[in-house]
């Protein structure tokens, strides 16, 4: 089945130690998103790729970076994780266009910072 896959599902890192989360999709969608979701809150958009074009949200900290080497893969790099970065990170994809294309979400990576 076509889907959005995130690895790992659980990640533990130390304070200040760089970490990379990955997302892959078999849907051939041209738009990919990274969200941060803290407990019982709505997902907060960090950035998205529209094809190869990177779009950063204004309030996304510089500590968060992203790479999209090809259509299928997207990475979230946290350069120096702080305790406040502990959260669920969700990847989502969609097709651009005026139609009501939904966003398809991955299962998320739960990041713990010790």
């Amino acid at each position: 089945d076509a889907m959005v896959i995130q690895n790992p599902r659980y990640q533990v890192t130390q304070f200040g130690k760089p970490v990379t989360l990955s997302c892959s999709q078999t849907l051939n969608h041209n738009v990919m998103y990274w969200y941060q979701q803290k407990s019982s809150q709505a997902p907060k958009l960090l950035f998205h790729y529209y094809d190869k074009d990177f779009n950063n949200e204004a309030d996304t900290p510089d500590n968060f970076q992203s790479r999209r080497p090809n259509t299928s893969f997207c990475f979230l790099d946290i350069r120096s994780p702080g305790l406040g970065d502990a959260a669920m990170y969700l990847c989502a994809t969609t097709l651009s266009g005026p139609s009501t294309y939904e966003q398809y979400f991955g299962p998320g990576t739960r990041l713990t910072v010790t």
Partner: protein
Amino acid sequence: AQTVTQSQPEMSVQEAETVTLSCTYDTSENNYYLFWYKQPPSRQMILVIRQEAYKQQNATENRFSVNFQKAAKSFSLKISDSQLGDTAMYFCAFRSMFNAGNMLTFGGGTRLMVKP
């Protein structure tokens, strides 16, 4: 900028009964899309139902239906014959038609507990 408000942080319902989750939004646009997403505990978020603002008819998907009141900017979700598997966080979301990146504006969510 659009805003989406879900005024019920938590709700509960007995199995087999009906429950309605509220959502209001604010926009100056005339054409847009509205969605309800479901996020079960420790599972991924999935789309429950969608509504195009230009359609007057309320969307229905099996036990799930919406009451879309465009003038009032209200978009409530009704779950009929509630099942234990409906226990989840529910997020209402708005999408502009003029948003090239198809980005969503989420409400704060409603945690629904279905009790046996």
